[in-house]
């Protein structure tokens, strides 16, 4: 295991632990300002959608159609069926288009 790997994982663990205790340590005495609360509310979703942005940027019709089907499934179904539908539609559409 490389030092770099270990250091990265350690920094990652530190970042996560800070978010877990941060609310307890900092916001115990004060309420967050509406602006901070608004950012904290939106941030996880913004990051998640940014991470999957490349899937939206691929110009492939089959991939974009599969992504649309997956998004529709996600809006109605739970995790497992959504993943299955996403995978199946990607495999099928890539074969067809």
């Amino acid at each position, binding site marked *: *295991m490389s030092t*770099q*790997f270990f*250091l*990265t*994982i350690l*920094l*990652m*663990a*530190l*970042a*996560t*632990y800070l*978010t*877990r*205790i*941060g*609310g*307890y340590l*900092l*916001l*115990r005495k004060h309420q*967050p300002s*509406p*602006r901070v*609360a*608004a*950012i*904290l*509310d*939106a*941030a*996880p*979703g*913004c*990051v*998640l*959608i*940014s*991470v*999957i*942005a*490349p*899937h939206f*940027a691929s110009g492939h019709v089959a991939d974009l159609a*599969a*992504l649309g089907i*997956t998004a529709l499934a*996600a809006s109605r*179904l*739970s*995790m497992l069926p*959504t*993943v299955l*539908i*996403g*995978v199946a539609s*990607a*495999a*099928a559409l890539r074969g067809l288009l």
Partner: protein
Amino acid sequence: MEPENVIGHPVEVGARNPALRSEFRRGVLASTPVMLGFVPFALVLGAQASRKGFAPVEVPLMTGLNFGGGSEFAVVQLWSSPPHMLLIMAVTFLINSRHLLMGAALTPYLKDLPRRKALLALFFMCDESWAMGLANAKRRAALGIPAFSLPYYMGASLGLYFTWVCFTFLGALLGPVMGNLESYGLDMAFPAVFLVLLKGMWSGPRAARPWLVSLVAGVIACLLLPGAWYVVVGSAAGALSACIWGMKK
């Protein structure tokens, strides 16, 4: 789901030791359905990490030290050799930043707990154990008994923790046997997981406007910039828009 019956069983808050044990067990039992739900995702995460060059032992090291599923999926997706340390730390922090608010919501119930115990308990806080611990505390507060039940919360948390760590390890061991995931469309599993996580955070189209900003900015950055800058650009644009919209309220 669980445990209306605590109301009918004052025994559980009576005699000290058996009460502790049964509270712990009640926590484990309450989180069992969620544990089962963790299994397929833990396997997929482990398999994907092994494909990105993680050695099998490195996977439970990450999931055991970090224990935040969404951030781990993102990090595996972004992983390169050598990894971009600061990018990974920043993405992890931002994805898990909801824990800041979750911890804050739990704080009034943690006041009677020694700080050392609270800090240890918070290490194991995930979305699901937080929700269960908070719901249980509210129920107990309504009954007028000490609100936060540490053994209940730890039962729920530790069950989920060990399920996650063990099955990501198993996924890492099985990963190489599973072959090329993309040829079966399995790369679509990631956006699918993320879209379901987003649905779970959904609280109306108004609140989701920053997400749209992130998506547009992220896609543009993808097309124009090299590497993983799209994560930074998309997240920053979304957070900035949330800040501006938050000020207007």
